[in-house]
């Protein structure tokens, strides 16, 4: 790792620390920073301690973890597919993971078996990735990839709508609908505990493929001649993405575009090298998600804006911009 990468990672870590603290201190209940901190350390009783330990802390930590998962998964997928438009959301993994989680909520399984939620998300994301590979093939063109992603997304969305349609009562429907919008509100320590092992395992798997992804940028045959095991690389990338994104989406709902925007912003400073992009994308993804989550709490609206709505509003124009750029390059 060279000095520039060190500085980038150091700077992003610092920013992440600041945002974590800010996320912990900002909320609808106006509580002094000192009280919150002592509540966290167990020096307070009653509602302040409860808010600090059960609401603010999991929200901040989950935000960072989910952002990191989406950021690194985006960077790894782009490196693997050699395509800057690949993103967990665009290839349908996020919406399929949502559908898996919706099923669990629909049948009320998450209360009885807390692990059901991340496992269903992971299963959904896994099915999506397999479908994409089957539909588009491994050396897919940009167009095929996006079309296959669209097909998988449409299917997952329809199935989710079906669940909404058949929801036993309006309250359940509303719960699912709100959950679908993507948010960190009201996530508990339990969400954090069930999701984080899968997310961390996914992140480590993805990070371990950095050098192989670099080699893959020179073509599959060249990479293989350099000692890269292509089968193992595919397994690690797919499994890492599915674990990280599936578990992340299952607790927060689909939060789009982080995996697209973050690697794109960092690609130039990391010299377009996939391995150098992985950890900075995780850190920047965490920062971006925390910042967006702070934003929804600070913007004065009647109902708190949903995080997924905000990232979508910011991310979609970005996607337009990337598409235009790709079109120009294809000419």
């Amino acid at each position, binding site marked *: *790792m060279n000095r520039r990468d060190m500085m980038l990672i150091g700077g992003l870590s610092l920013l992440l620390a600041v945002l974590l603290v800010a996320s912990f201190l900002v909320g609808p209940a106006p509580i002094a920073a000192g009280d919150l901190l002592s509540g966290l350390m167990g020096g307070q009783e009653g509602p302040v301690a409860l808010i600090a330990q059960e609401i603010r802390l999991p929200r901040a930590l989950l935000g960072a973890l989910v952002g990191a998962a989406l950021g690194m998964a985006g960077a790894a997928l782009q490196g693997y597919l*050699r395509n800057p438009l690949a993103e967990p959301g665009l290839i349908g993994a996020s919406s399929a993971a949502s559908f898996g989680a919706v099923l669990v909520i629909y049948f009320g399984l998450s209360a009885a078996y807390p692990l059901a939620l991340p496992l269903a998300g992971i299963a959904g994301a896994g099915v999506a990735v397999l479908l994409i590979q089957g539909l588009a093939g491994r050396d897919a063109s940009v167009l095929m990839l996006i079309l296959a992603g669209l097909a998988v997304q449409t299917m997952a969305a329809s199935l989710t709508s079906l669940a909404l349609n058949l929801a036993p009562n309006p309250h359940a429907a509303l719960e699912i609908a709100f959950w679908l919008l993507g948010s960190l509100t009201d996530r508990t320590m339990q969400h954090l505990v069930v999701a984080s092992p899968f997310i961390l395992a996914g992140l480590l798997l993805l990070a*371990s493929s*950095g*050098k192989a992804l*670099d*080699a893959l*940028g*020179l*073509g599959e*045959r*060249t990479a*293989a*001649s*350099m*000692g*890269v*095991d292509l089968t193992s690389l595919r397994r690690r990338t797919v499994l890492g993405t599915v674990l990280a994104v599936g578990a992340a989406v299952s607790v927060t709902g689909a939060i789009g575009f982080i995996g697209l925007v973050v690697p794109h912003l960092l690609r130039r400073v990391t*010299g*377009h*090298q*996939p391995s150098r992009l992985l950890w900075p994308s995780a850190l920047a993804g965490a920062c971006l998600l925390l910042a967006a989550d702070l934003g929804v709490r600070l913007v004065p609206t009647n109902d708190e804006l949903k995080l997924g709505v905000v990232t979508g509003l910011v991310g979609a124009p970005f996607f337009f911009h990337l598409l235009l750029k790709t079109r120009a390059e294809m000419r």
Partner: protein
Amino acid sequence: MSMLQATGLHVARGGRPVLNGVDFAVAGGECVGLIGPNGAGKSTLLSVLAALLPPAAGEVALEGRALADWPRHERARRIGYLEQGAASHWPLRVDRVVTLGRLPHAGPWGGEGAGDRAAITRAMRQCEVEGLAERIVTTLSGGERARVMLARVLAGEPSILLADEPAAGLDPHHQLQVMELLAGLATGGMGVVVVLHDLSLAMRYCTRLCLLDEAGRVAADGVPESLLESGIIEQVYGIELLRGSRDGIPYVLPWKQRGMG
């Protein structure tokens, strides 16, 4: 002793034999040209030698040990493979591309050591790409890119170099440059195998030629002059060659198709 030796290779594609009982060997100090008409299986043979394609039958041994028995990285340290039309998908800096060539020598998390840097510098000097170090590889001309990609292979310090049509698509100046580089590497002790379409370049720069025919068999294997004398090249390609010599070095030029007035 041969460093890389193949015996009785068979490869079929779509029911048609591409390699049909091919024996091949290369030793250090040789620059072997793989020649033959389109579809004769030159690139396929190179892929098998590079362990990118398992043969249906037959064996390849590297330093006396079956290719498949080598751990991936050990094998990659010994055999360098230059893909046809090799290019980088990402707009990396040239020195980064060459550095990637050290991959077979690094662990999954390892950094660069002094030995790595020395090998990278040497490879860049050999291929005369030091001046391009900070350029972006996707913006280079074809000749520059070919040299960078060769430097990438050489950075891995292989004892055997397999190059698939490294001269294709280059202008004559760069063709001569690449071939002189490859011949020089062989003189330096490397075993070089190079797939070539250009018979003039093959005659001129290779120490040995292996001619494959359309049935996927070795039609001839020997020093360039012996292949030329036997007329086998003309027979397999169905052409007539114009021969000459300059300063005692023979040259050939594909002149016309066989049986045409």
